[in-house]
């Protein structure tokens, strides 16, 4: 008689789980920090139970019958917000693009490069609202303040993305332009720009999308736009108007993101092959 199948081994030898002490320590540290934060936070946890019902009630107040009467004003304020975002983006591009070329390795002197990169990272660390608070002492509570704050914030991000884009281009055309006797400006124009331009355009559009969101936020300190209107009506506790305003914010942001995203994809990937 032959065995058709070998006898099943008594126990499968499962390899021991590998232990990583670094991971364990990191896990413990994170857990301790999170628990400490929860424990020390000044929050009445007992209120948390009734919170979902509360929020549902407010959501009902806001969205069951949004107040359409204020829609024209909301659209006008949205236009002001978008203006803020647009002007902020254009100014940011005008300031950041030359700076990012100087900050790229191989084009500006090293000390200037280090200093510029440091400035970019400092600017990125400060929220735009703080810039707006500083600027409004000169320009007052106007949308211009918001636009200028967004422009400064934009210099931080656009500057960083810009020098990274310039450093990532293929070196061949740069060498060719240099070998042909081009000056630094000519190398940038003919060796770098044709390669980096799509990336730049795409970043500019992306920054515009960011600015559209940020411009709604800047309104909260009173520089005008949809955010300004939103805070006012929240303070009046006119929830049906607040609901309508939130819908406007969502629709406008999603629409602008969709259009800008489509253009970006077109720039980066070219026309779709049929």
């Amino acid at each position, binding site marked *: 008689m032959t065995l058709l199948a070998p006898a099943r081994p008594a126990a499968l030898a499962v390899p021991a789980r590998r232990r990583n002490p670094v991971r364990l320590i990191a896990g413990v540290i994170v857990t301790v920090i999170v628990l400490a934060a929860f424990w020390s936070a000044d929050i009445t946890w007992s209120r948390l139970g009734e919170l979902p019902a509360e929020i549902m009630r407010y959501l009902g107040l806001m969205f069951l019958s949004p107040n359409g009467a204020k829609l024209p004003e909301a659209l006008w304020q949205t236009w002001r917000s978008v203006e803020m975002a647009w002007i902020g983006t254009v100014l940011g591009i005008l300031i950041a693009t030359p700076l990012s070329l100087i900050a790229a390795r191989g084009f500006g002197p090293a000390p200037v490069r280090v200093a510029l990169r440091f400035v970019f990272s400092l600017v990125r660390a400060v929220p735009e*609202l703080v810039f707006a608070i500083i600027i409004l*002492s*000169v320009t007052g509570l106007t949308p211009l303040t918001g*636009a200028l704050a967004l422009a400064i914030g934009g210099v931080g991000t656009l500057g960083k993305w810009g020098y990274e884009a310039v450093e990532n281009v293929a070196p061949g055309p740069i060498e060719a332009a240099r070998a042909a006797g081009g000056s630094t400006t000519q190398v940038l124009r003919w060796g770098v720009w044709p390669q980096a331009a799509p990336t730049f355009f795409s970043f500019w559009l992306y920054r515009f999308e960011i600015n559209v969101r940020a411009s709604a*936020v800047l309104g909260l300190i009173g520089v005008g736009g949809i955010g300004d209107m939103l805070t006012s009506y929240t303070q009046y506790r006119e929830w049906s108007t607040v609901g309508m305003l939130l819908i406007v914010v969502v629709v406008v942001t999603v629409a602008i993101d969709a259009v800008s995203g489509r253009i970006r994809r077109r720039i980066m990937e070219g026309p779709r092959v049929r």
Partner: protein
Amino acid sequence: MPWAAALVIAAVTVVMCLPGVGVGLDVAAIARNWQQGALRIVELLTPDWTFFPRTVGPILETLQTAVIGTAVGAAISLPVSFWAARPTNPFTPTRALVRGILNVIRAVPELVYAAVLVAMVGVGALPGILALVLFNVGIVVKLVSESIDATDAGPLEAGRAAGGTQAQINRTIALPDTWPTFVSQTLYVFELNVRASTVLGLVGAGGIGLLIDAVRTYYRYDQLSLVILEILVIVVVLDTVSDAIRRRLV
């Protein structure tokens, strides 16, 4: 074509600077206020160091808000990410629903959430935390589910071929794969949260932002300057740490 685009952009920009419909570019007013602005900048350059003890408490509250917001947001995001990715949730209607809701959530900035939530649940750290949670779920789920979408389908198919249910496949195959991306994106939103939480107080949601609001009402730009410096130090330090950890992960 590029010139036409440039022309359109220039035209739109000019229209937006016009009085009445535009951003309100008033050169005369700026010239008038210039003196005052110069004074403010001098104040900004001389931080009031004696103000430091009063900033410690609010700064700690800001960090608490960021930590709690990140922790809760991450805890919610992990399961939702599996719902929003095609390999781990092949059922299109629920996936589309989850993604649709998240697209709407992402369209509203976190400060706007905070402003509305302050009116709902009252002043304090709680509305700030809730706003950050919403903001985090929106971002983390998008980034993590996109990474799940992009992973190699082989192991998942093996799991299905071995007769695993979708839940078993997600738990034993997709989860270990997703883990590093998830931790990395959570650290990334923690960086964003630290930045965001510093200004949440401006709408009444607690932390250092409340102090920013107070000193700006009294035009104490020397104190504001100290607060900005502290934010700078905290953001730069935490970014550096988180960046170093993330580079090891991915």
